[in-house]
Structure formats: structure tokens, C-alpha cells
């Protein structure tokens, strides 16, 4: 309760909570499109690629003002995404390779500059370290305003161009045929991606911010088959886990924020993978067990029907062994027979022999799609 109280009235915590919540909303939404487009790793590459931008912006202006550094980061991010596109289009290197190369070259350059800056005489504490793993506690009201504006723009654009993004994600060819310029859509998408990543750098850090994009989308996908629902869910997952993670980091033992958020996100993923209503492992298993049971039951009913037809009296009782031979497996057959008897489809005599009941015969008829078709 006291945490909730502090969240509302403590200046730092309020900023942290609000900032990361807003950050997550946009990141989760754009992340859904990114993963569905099969570009899950591009966010990682762009995020790493922003580091030299931060360092160069600092070297040029020696400003500690975050907005200047973020502009540098954005330029580097755009350059990075452009370079990846060019490499994929003009060489035989695949998208994985291009992502990896740009990620590592840019990040290597960034680290080189960062270590250089650290050794400069007057700037021993430029505070650039926070860009690597993120430090949510450094968020001030001004940062929250920047995050809010950027996220508002991103979400508005997503809503306005929802149709175009949707169609270009699932069917690029038909999008082009319908007369939308795929290149412009891709460019807008890349710009949104860079914007979301750049405003999140301070909080989550370059190394782990891509998790804020990919993980909630992967989790949301387990709960729905509708894009709209997925985007909303992903956005909520991302926002909530961003907030929880950063609050733990800001109140607790001065733990780095990015990793904390990732761990909370992973919890969401684990729950979704297990219990997700559309694809979750547990649900799938339950559905599979149900399917198997129905299959076994139907086979037994059909077998009894065949037996009944091949004998003169139609209500002849058969042992579970005979039925087992008919359906060619014996495991658990007695259990299934009992279930069927319980639901009134079978009749059982004193020696545990089974026959179709009236209801059972009707059910078999409906299985066969009507008496007429298979009648002798």
C-alpha cells in the first residue's frame, strides 16, 4: 500500500512509474508489428546502433541535456536501419547477418567513443553509462513529457495507418497492388521504431530495450488471433511490466532497470506460453486430450455398431476384449466404456458386456451423417 502511496505522491517514483508505463504502451504496440513482420531482431540492432549517436552528440556539444543526446541517438538509429536495408538489398548477406554486422560495428564504435569520453579529463561523470543498462531513477518530469509526446505521436500514427500497417505486415504484395507505397509504409514504420527505442534508452538501456518490443508481443500472441487485440494486449503487458520492473529497480537495491524489466516481462511470457487461451501449452494439451477422448469414444461406438449389424440380434452384448480388438487398442478402453455408459450411450450387463443404447444408436447415426447413407 505504501508503494502505491509513494507512486502517487513521491516525485521520483511518480515520474518513473508514469514514464515507463507510457514507454511500454508504445513499445508493445509497435513491437507486435515488428514480430509479425519477422523482424524481431531488428529492434535489437537499432537499439545497439544508437550508442555512437549518443557519444558523438556528447562529444560535439558536451551537453548533458538528454534531448540533445537523444537526437544523436535517433540519427544513429536511422543510419543503422538504413545501412541494414542497403546491405540486405545489395549484397548476398542475409538479414540476420546484416543486423549482426550493423549492431556490432555501431556498438563497437559506441563503446570505443564511450571509453574515450570516460578518460577525458573534465567529463569523468558524463552519465553516459546509464544508456547501456538504463537507469529509471534518473527520469525527471521533463523526460516524462518527452516520452508522453513521442508515445502519443507513435500511437496516433499507428491508429491512423492501422489498415496500411496490417496489410503490409501480412501481405506486402497485395498492399502494393492496392496502391499503397510499400516503401513509404516501411519508412514510417522504421521512424516509429527508432522513436520508441530512442526515448526508452535512458530508462531501459540500449542492450535490453528490444526485449520491451519483442517479449510483450510474443506473450500477447498466445491470447488472441486478432491483430487489434494483440496490439492492445501487447501494449498493456509492456506498459505494466515496464512499470513494475522500473519501480523495483528504483526502490530496491539500486539494481539496473533494463534487466529488472526484462525479468518481469519474462514472467508474463512464461504465463502466456503456459496458459495462453489460443496457443498456450496447457490449453493445447487439454484440447488434445479432449480430441483424443472423443476420437476413442467415436471409434468404440462405431465398432459396436458394426458388430451389431454383423449379428442378427441388434442388442447383442460384447465384452470389452472384443471391442478392444475391433478398435485395435486396449489401453484405457474400460475407462472409456464406463464414461460412455455413464453418459447413457451404452448399456452394460452384469458380466460387464456392452451394447449400444437407443441414444447410442441415434448418436452413431448422426456420426455417419444420417441412416440412409450407410444403411444396408
Amino acid at each position, binding site marked *: 500500500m505504501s508503494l502505491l502511496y509513494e507512486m502517487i505522491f513521491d516525485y521520483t517514483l511518480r515520474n518513473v512509474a508514469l514514464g515507463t508505463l507510457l514507454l511500454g504502451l508504445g513499445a508493445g504496440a509497435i513491437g507486435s508489428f515488428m*514480430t509479425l513482420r*519477422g523482424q*524481431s*531482431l531488428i529492434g*535489437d540492432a537499432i537499439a*545497439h546502433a544508437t550508442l555512437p549517436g549518443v557519444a558523438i552528440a556528447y562529444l560535439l556539444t558536451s551537453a548533458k541535456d538528454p534531448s540533445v543526446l537523444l537526437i544523436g541517438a535517433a540519427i544513429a538509429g536511422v543510419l543503422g536501419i538504413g545501412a541494414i536495408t542497403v*546491405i540486405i538489398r*545489395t*549484397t*548476398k*548477406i*542475409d538479414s*540476420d*547477418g546484416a*543486423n*549482426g*554486422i550493423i*549492431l*556490432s*560495428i*555501431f*556498438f*563497437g*564504435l*559506441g*563503446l*570505443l*567513443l*564511450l*571509453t*574515450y569520453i570516460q*578518460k577525458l579529463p573534465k567529463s569523468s561523470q558524463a552519465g553516459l553509462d546509464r544508456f*547501456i*543498462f538504463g537507469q529509471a531513477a534518473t527520469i525527471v518530469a521533463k523526460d516524462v513529457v518527452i516520452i508522453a509526446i513521442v508515445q502519443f505521436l507513435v500511437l496516433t500514427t499507428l491508429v491512423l495507418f492501422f489498415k496500411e500497417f496490417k496489410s503490409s505486415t501480412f501481405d506486402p504484395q497485395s498492399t502494393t497492388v492496392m496502391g499503397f507505397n510499400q516503401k513509404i509504409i516501411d519508412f514510417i514504420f522504421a521512424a516509429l521504431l527508432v522513436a520508441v527505442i530512442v526515448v526508452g534508452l535512458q530508462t531501459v538501456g540500449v*542492450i*535490453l530495450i*528490444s*526485449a520491451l518490443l*519483442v*517479449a510483450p*508481443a*510474443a506473450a500477447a*500472441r*498466445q491470447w488472441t488471433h486478432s491483430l487489434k487485440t494483440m496490439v492492445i494486449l501487447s501494449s498493456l503487458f509492456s506498459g505494466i511490466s515496464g512499470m513494475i520492473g522500473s519501480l523495483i529497480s528504483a526502490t530496491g*537495491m*539500486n*539494481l*539496473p532497470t*533494463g*534487466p*529488472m524489466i*526484462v*525479468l518481469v*516481462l*519474462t514472467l508474463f*511470457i512464461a504465463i502466456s*506460453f503456459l496458459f495462453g487461451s489460443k*496457443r498456450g*501449452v496447457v490449453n493445447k494439451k487439454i484440447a488434445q486430450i479432449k480430441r483424443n477422448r472423443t476420437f476413442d469414444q467415436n471409434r468404440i461406438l462405431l465398432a459396436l455398431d458394426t458388430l451389431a449389424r454383423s449379428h442378427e440380434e441388434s442388442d447383442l452384448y460384447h465384452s470389452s476384449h472384443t471391442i478392444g480388438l475391433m478398435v485395435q487398442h486396449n489401453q484405457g478402453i474400460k475407462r472409456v466404456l464406463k464414461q460412455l455408459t455413464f453418459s447413457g450411450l451404452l448399456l452394460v450387463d452384469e458380466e460387464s458386456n456392452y451394447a449400444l443404447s437407443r441414444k447410442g444408436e441415434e448418436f452413431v447415426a448422426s456420426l455417419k451423417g444420417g441412416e440412409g447413407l450407410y444403411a444396408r
Partner: protein
Amino acid sequence: MQGEIIVIAILSSIACAIPGVFLLLKRMALISDAISHSILPGIVIGFLVKQSLNTPYPIIGAVLSAMVMVVVSESLHRSNLVKGDTAIAVVFPPLFSVGVILVSIFAKNVHLDTDAVLLGELAFAPFDRMAIFNTTLPKSMVKMAIILVLNLIVMIVLFKELKVSTFDPVLSKSLGFSPSFLHYLLMFMTSITAVGAFDSVGAILVLAFMITPTATALLLTNSLFLMVIIAFILATGSSILGVLFAMKIDAGISGSITTVMGLFFILAYLFSPSNGVVTRIKNKMRIKHEYALSIILYHLMNHCEADDMESECSYGHLMDQFSYPQRYLKKVVHSAVARGLVEEHNGVFHITEEGLKSTSLPVYK
């Protein structure tokens, strides 16, 4: 001491390039990134056992956590819960996060901080020595040398198998080499190499060492064998230049080596003789030139010795006919005259015998 640092850098970068070649060609470059991130918790836990990086525990822990990443992401992919690259992107960040959090919790009392995780400590490597034969060598030099030799042995012995399974997994299976065995061998090799390179290069730039020189080599050649050799040369060159540059400006060594590797990549991208940007632009210009030349020749051929020859074959008419810029047309016509395909008489162009031959079409008169 500088020499020793350079040697360690060379050993690490060549050792990394060996799995890198096959990862890049199998379109799994980012697996190496994922592996190098996910070894961190294993290393930290192994480190905490004896408070030292020079016991087998960090290596065992690291390989185990890398294998956890590989197996979990593959089973996620196979279960259809998420697509392949998403599976990787979902599995390695939590592992890395656990590592970072462990480091920051224990940072006060152990000698392993986030800088070491990110950058490695190549500059301090020569201080940590071990006695070997009659001399002492830096421990990380010995470690990287062993890993390099192991990687070389695997690559040389299994070169054919790795090659086939990289380019044609189905053929490889039908020939009787198990692609999944080779796959896991490669994953294992990548993990061991990443662990070894971890203290000199840092967790993240292992990716750079693995794929940047190999991608540069891929731009320069189409032969696997040559690609390996070129990657080795580039790795060596980048290590030497990178260490020297870092010493000069007093900055992080691994970042500096990576930057040099990046410069080599850009150079190869621009100037590769087979498909660099410059070569491609040159080719494009040559083709455009040849095309302009040939249509002018056809035009002259059609009008040679016709009644309207005077007007049709003048310079001004060529300008009207083919809307090329004046200077470009001049250049093309000049080159045609220089090659003896066209002659000029009083401002009228005649196609020569040589020119007729070069159009290689029957002449209609």
C-alpha cells in the same frame, strides 16, 4: 606487453572467425549474439563458486547456460508458440538480465563489474600470468591458443561435412552426416569460443569478432576456403591496428578492434572487385555507354547512303533523336570515332566497315 595484447587479440579474433564463417553462411549470425549474451549468468555463477575466472567452473556454467538458450529457443520454435527469431529474442534477454543483476548485486565484493562484462579486460590480460615451460605467459593467451587449436582441428577434420551441411542440409543427411549433430557441434564450438573470448572481448562484441571479418570476406569471395583465409587475415589485421589505435587514444581495446573491423567491412562493401559498390557503378556506366554506342551505330547504319543521310547523320540530329545530354553524346561519339567505328566528314557521321561489323546485323541497302 603491447605485443602480448596484440597476440591475444589475434588469437581471439581468429578463433571467433571459425564458427563465425559457418554461422553466417547458415543464416544464423544472431545465434552468436544470443549465445554470447546468454553465457553471462553461467560465467557469473561459475565465478562465484571460487571467486575467480581461472577455474573450470565459469566455462562449465557458461556452456551450460548457452546450451539452455539453444535448446529452449529451438523447442519454443518447434512448438510453434513463436517464430524462430522471436524465440531467440525472447530467450536470451532474461538470461543476460540474470547475469547483469547478479553482477550488480555482487559487484561490491568481487572483481567482476559491468565494464568487464561489456568491454573485456584485454588491457589487463598480461598481468595475469601462468608458468609454462621455461617462461610465463598470460593465462588468457594460453586459453585462447587452446581454443583456437581446437577450433582449427574441428574445422580441418570436418571441413567437408561442415561445408555440405551448411549449404545443403538435405544432401548432407542423405550422405550420412547428421546435420543436427553438426549443428550442435557448431553451437558447442560457438559457446566455448564465446566463453574464451569473454574476458578479452566482452560479452557483446564477441558477435562482432565472429561475423564482421567473415561477412567482409563473404563480400570478397565466393569460395568457402578463400573466405576462411581472408577472414583470418582480416581478423589479424584488425586486431593489430585496433590495439595500436586504442593504445594511442587511450580507449577500450575491443571497441577499437571492432571499429577497425567495421572500417574493413565498409571498404570491402565499397571496393570489392566482384560486387562492391564502385565496381557495380562502373559496370552500370559501361553498360549504359555500350548501349548508347550501339543504338547510335544502328541509327547511322540505317541511314548510311540514304537520301536523307546529310540531315539524319548530323550531330544536331543525333541530339534530337536520342535525348542524351550533349556532353554525354559527345563522349560516346568521340569514343566511337576513337575506336574507328565511325568517321566524320564535314559534320556528317559515316559508319565505317569496322562499325558495320560490330553491329553484327545484316545490312539492308
